């Protein structure tokens, strides 16, 4: 991995042949929009590229004597996606683990292979942000992605590849400046959840606290659809003798999500659904994959119509767990 400074001029030069293949997250655009050309496609988050809200998995038709099946087409042209650290982390540490571990999702893999990530340092955490609580941070980086800190006249860059060949050595002074900046931004952010949290949380599955925690949630799909890590989908066959298999987003907040063919529903009310959302992100997923399935971006907190705040649910459970441990 190398580090360096890229001047504005060179940055634009590097972007020159990528203009029609550039994606930028909405939240990154608000902060860094001026660093990107007008052609950049603004998306809510990485899901819009990797897990579109609707996708034809295959087409089929009845050819008189047998079924014919054609696989759906997936883009393979190289694309660039620039986002905030939390949003990149949602891809690298959550959706990648879901779709690239066995059984591998072919469509996701193809799209992912052609996607290069750029992480733009987060210099203004918002009141709804809590990335540091869940193992990330405003300067979170990963070796597969470019890490960028846009400054007044240049961009500090870490990573590999063509952009680095445009960079100049920044020297000790720049290193110092970046470190100071990071310290400044990170000061006062919450410290990570204790390592025992995911395991102990599950012990509170039956806790009556969930009634109160979940009470005012309306079980809509706003939080899960807008969350960069929520990846649940539904599969349906659209058509009879001719049609396609459709993959579309689904949400654990919806009553049909767990409805059995027998009409039994193991998650009959809002309480079970809210508990599932929290448990999946903070217990089941981390127990399996080693990190939370929430990157603390705060989007769900900001967008919830009734101000249901996942941080409060976590806080209440932390308190319970710590009280019992004491």
């Amino acid at each position, binding site marked *: 991995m190398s580090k360096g400074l890229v001047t504005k001029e060179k940055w634009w030069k590097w972007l020159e042949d990528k203009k029609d293949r550039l994606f930028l997250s909405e939240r990154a655009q608000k902060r860094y929009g001026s660093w990107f050309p007008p052609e950049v496609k603004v998306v809510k988050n990485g899901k819009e590229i990797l897990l579109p809200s*609707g996708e034809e998995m295959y087409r089929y038709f009845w050819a008189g004597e047998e079924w014919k099946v054609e696989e759906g087409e997936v883009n393979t042209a190289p694309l660039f996606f620039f986002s905030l650290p939390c949003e990149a982390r949602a891809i690298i540490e959550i959706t990648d683990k879901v779709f690239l571990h066995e059984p591998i999702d072919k469509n996701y893999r193809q799209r992912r292979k052609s996607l290069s990530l750029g992480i733009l340092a987060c210099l203004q955490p918002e009141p709804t942000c809590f990335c540091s609580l869940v193992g990330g941070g405003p300067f979170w980086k990963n070796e597969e992605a470019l890490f960028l800190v846009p400054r007044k006249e240049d961009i500090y860059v870490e990573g590999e590849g063509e952009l680095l060949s445009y960079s100049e050595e920044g020297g000790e002074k720049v290193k110092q400046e970046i470190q100071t900046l990071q310290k400044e931004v990170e000061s006062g952010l919450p410290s990570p959840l204790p390592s025992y949290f995911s395991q102990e949380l599950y012990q509170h599955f039956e806790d009556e606290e969930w009634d109160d925690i979940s009470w005012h949630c309306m079980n809509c799909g706003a939080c899960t*659809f807008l969350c960069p890590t929520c990846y649940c989908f539904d599969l349906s066959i659209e058509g009879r003798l001719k049609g396609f298999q459709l993959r*579309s987003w689904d949400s654990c907040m919806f009553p049909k999500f767990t409805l059995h063919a027998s009409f039994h529903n193991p998650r009959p*009310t809002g309480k079970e659904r809210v508990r599932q959302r929290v448990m999946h992100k903070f217990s089941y997923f981390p127990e399996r994959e080693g990190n939370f399935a929430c990157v603390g971006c705060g989007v769900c907190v900001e967008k919830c119509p009734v101000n249901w705040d996942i941080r*409060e649910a976590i806080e209440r459970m932390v308190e319970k767990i710590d009280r019992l441990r004491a």
Partner: protein
Amino acid sequence: MFEKEIRRKAKELLEAKTVDLVIGYTSGSLPFQARPILVSSPEDVGKLVWNHFARSNLARYLLPYRDSSKKIALLAKGCDARAVAVLLQEEQFPRERIHIIGLPCPGVISRRKLEEKLGEIKEEDFSWEENSFLFQGEKWEVRPFLEDTCARCRYPNPPLYDELIGEEKEPWRDGSVDYLKELDNQSREERWQFFAAELSRCIRCYACRNACPLCYCKECFAESDSPRWVNGVPTLSDNLFFHLGRSMHLAGRCVECGACERACPEEIKIGLLPLKVEEIVRENFSFEAGLSLEEEAPLLTYKESDPGEFIK
């Protein structure tokens, strides 16, 4: 704003066991928010608040209790009380199970409008007065900051209540600000452009439907598998189908509270559709939902003497 009286009343009702539960608003984790809260113990009444940020229609929080025997007190703005009246008329609850604490509504304020005009805002910079507020010492009228849905409200005062806390208010509506009327004045083409743009942004999260006190079907047509009306992909055509379908299901039932629109995470002006349908019902049937328990809802009533040939 009458918080003391509200808390005192809630406490009294719970202590006397007149009700088992009180549904009201409390302050949230973010500024300029009043979120729904359930209070079941007299000790917790101090959590109740009442201000300009009571965006939800609380009547929708009654719905999970339909099959219980709990007696519930509900803090109700004009539109919340109207929604309760429709629920009672539609026999979702017996009247004696719902205790309505009526609150003349000061209007819900749009945080976005505050930010647009005042820049960065903090709660401590505001002090609220009747119909106006002081922001960093400067006086502003509340009116221009109201949610679009509230600026056209006809009934800030609950038409139905067991008791009323606060003074009855004049409606804000004077015809000068009505976002529905603005749309009426456009050409069909312009309106189509407008709705196509708005509904292309819809992610079909159903927050609008779930916020609506009168969308209480056990299985919504949008989620029905047989017949299957729409699939899960938020395309313009399916979005349009869902929202038009929903508006029609609310014809003559919608109480024009605007809770659907205020719930939308994408800030889509989705209230316009049901509100327009209610305009049509008002014009054609001289009827407004939820104003009384006696008046028959025209679209839910069958009469052999109906003048419409097609229906007989």
